[in-house]
């Protein structure tokens, strides 16, 4: 699998939360040759099943990365211009940004700014707030009225850029990067026998409510799951304790959202295979699909593996794609050992009441 090419395809697809259709179709297409069965469920999750070897019932392990990307929503039509609301964006990156309004047809647009020539000194020293920003489609008011309505979603636009070495910049690396990682894992699994059934899910609405994670978990009832997401790479202005060097390998999360034995297994596996990796300390809410999975369908032991990116939630997220192959290798090894004994090791046990308490 050509990871850069797959990633270019995946990130260019448009998939705002709740409007993942275009991205879902693409993922289903790419998953099809790697799975026995691929479906798009009622909420829009793409679910691929790759059965394991060995007699039934087999353990069911779910891998999940989210399909959706952050977006804007048209809140009013103001003549030829569109007013909008955001969720998840730093408003500063919107000024001067290019967008695609998903109206009756996809429409390229610009969120422009006053030219500096006519700004007052006060204006120069502060950012415009959202109430001052508009989307300009370069169309006349009548055309806009015909093509756009309130509630239409808007995604940021931008090409897939190959930077130096293995680094790329793109929109929607959060979380198509990890969707690509799932595809790379399924690809490796074609050549590796695995005792468990693999349930590969590209989930919807992670950036909104986490709906895809809870519904897919409830419907598929996996015995264990690993959520895959992006995390923060080191860059100017961030704290070292919360971030990882770019290209430092998968970050394996540790904390109450994750099952300690899954975390430990992933860490041991990375050590054994000499895969560069980091420990991601997560004291409470992880802000990922793992948060929803863990408590769905009566509770599902979960793990979380992340790849660090820079500039998260911007159209220029940067990643070192070497981390995709590393993460896929780690997940493949994890799935290759995920048998009934492994599931057994995840169960919490009562004390042996016959023995005296220590």
């Amino acid at each position: 699998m050509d990871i850069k090419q797959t990633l270019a395809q995946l990130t260019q697809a448009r998939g705002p939360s709740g409007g993942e259709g275009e991205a879902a179709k693409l993922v289903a297409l790419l998953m099809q040759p790697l799975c026995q069965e691929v479906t798009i469920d009622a909420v829009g999750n793409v679910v691929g099943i790759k059965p394991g070897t060995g007699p039934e019932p087999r353990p069911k392990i779910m891998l999940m990365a989210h399909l959706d990307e952050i977006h804007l929503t048209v809140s009013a039509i103001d003549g030829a211009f569109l007013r909008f609301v955001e969720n998840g964006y730093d408003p500063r990156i919107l000024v001067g940004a290019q967008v695609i309004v998903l109206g009756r047809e996809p429409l390229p647009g610009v969120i422009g700014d006053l030219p500096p020539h006519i700004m007052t000194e006060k204006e120069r020293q502060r950012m415009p707030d959202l109430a001052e920003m508009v989307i300009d489609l370069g169309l006349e008011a009548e055309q806009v009225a015909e093509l756009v309505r309130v509630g239409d979603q808007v995604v940021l636009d931008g090409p897939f850029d190959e930077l130096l070495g293995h680094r790329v910049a793109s929109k929607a690396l959060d979380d198509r990067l990890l969707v690509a990682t799932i595809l790379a894992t399924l690809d490796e699994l074609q050549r590796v026998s695995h005792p468990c059934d693999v349930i590969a899910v590209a989930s919807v609405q992670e950036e909104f409510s986490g709906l895809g994670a809870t519904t897919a978990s409830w419907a598929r009832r996996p015995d264990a799951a690993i959520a895959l997401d992006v995390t923060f790479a080191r860059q100017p202005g961030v704290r070292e304790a919360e971030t990882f060097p770019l290209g430092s390998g998968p970050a394996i999360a540790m904390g109450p959202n994750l099952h300690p034995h899954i975390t430990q297994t992933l860490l041991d596996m990375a050590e054994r295979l000499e895969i560069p990796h980091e420990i991601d300390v997560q004291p409470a809410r992880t802000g990922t699909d793992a948060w929803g999975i863990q408590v769905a369908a009566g509770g599902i032991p979960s793990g979380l593996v992340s790849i660090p990116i820079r500039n998260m939630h911007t159209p220029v997220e940067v990643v070192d794609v070497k981390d995709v192959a590393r993460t896929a290798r780690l997940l493949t090894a994890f799935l290759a050992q995920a048998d009934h004994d492994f599931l057994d090791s995840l169960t919490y046990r009562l004390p042996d009441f016959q023995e005296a308490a220590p």
Partner: protein
Amino acid sequence: MSILTLDLLKRLSETPGGPGDEAAVRDIIARVVHPHVDELSIDSMGNLIARKRGTGASSKQVALAAHMDEVAFMITKIDNDGLLHVAASGGINRRTLLGKRVQVGPERLPGVISVRPPHLVDDPEEYRKPPKLQDLVIDIGAKNGDEAKSKVKRGQYAVFRTPFRFLGPDEPSGDAALPRSGRISGKAFDDRLGCAALIELLAGEPFPFDVTGVFTVQEEIGLRGALAAGSRMTPDAVFILEGTLCPDLPGRWGQETTPPTTRLGHGPALTTADRSHITPPRLLQHLLRTAQARDIPYQFKHPNVGGTDAAGFARYTGAPAAIISTPARYIHSPIAIADLTDFWHGVELVRAAMETL
């Protein structure tokens, strides 16, 4: 028959040309105008000067000018993490920089302007503040300082990297003649639109008099090219072809907007006076009469805003200079929007005004 195509406009817009670094733009223009002019030269500043002989019907001398440069960054430092630090060359709108794409150096290496994720911003007050230039870094994907230094040198330029686009429902093919209407988006419309207009005027039929077309350098840092070129010529009239600001936006939601400097789609903008130049009334009058006689729409640019090469050409010789601009929203940022109707009306107005001079 026009010489302009969407493809040519795309190349003019997308090619980097910071102040003092206009060679790539100049090269494109020189190749395009070469078959249509009688003499082509480059002066010591880097201005491209094209002479086109007239029919001989008039002994007047007319100059046309447009600037090739655009607002840009220069690389001031390459740090140990391989990130590039910058200074501004020209008046870049700082509010529009975070998370944007740039191209660096002569190899046009793709890079992005770094911005820390909102999740890691502690103080929401930070969202209110435009970034300081000294805090900006460009990320070209280098693993460390050594890798970055093997690709980029201090003093090289970075400009925005914005694909040129035809907006609106029906995109014509790139090699067809430039459409007469429709809107376009891209970078450096200030002043590659002027360059395109000047190319079109030079490529047409000869005028009654000799014409000198000057594609100037370094307008954005103080009209440097125009000053040098203007000090060597004594034309009877100078027409400056510009892309000018167009803040015809609605105001804050629910509030009145300030009167815009120009409006998109309302015709080429004529300058009565800007911050550095007062248009001689007789030349302005001639433009107005021509527009009215030919039924060409026009608008007046709000006075005392901005400055152009007109002041440079007038500085030494006092040559009468007028400014005809295509309004472009959001200039001095990564992207602008202009209306091709305005562009073509501008070309038509200048051509008509020259024919009746």
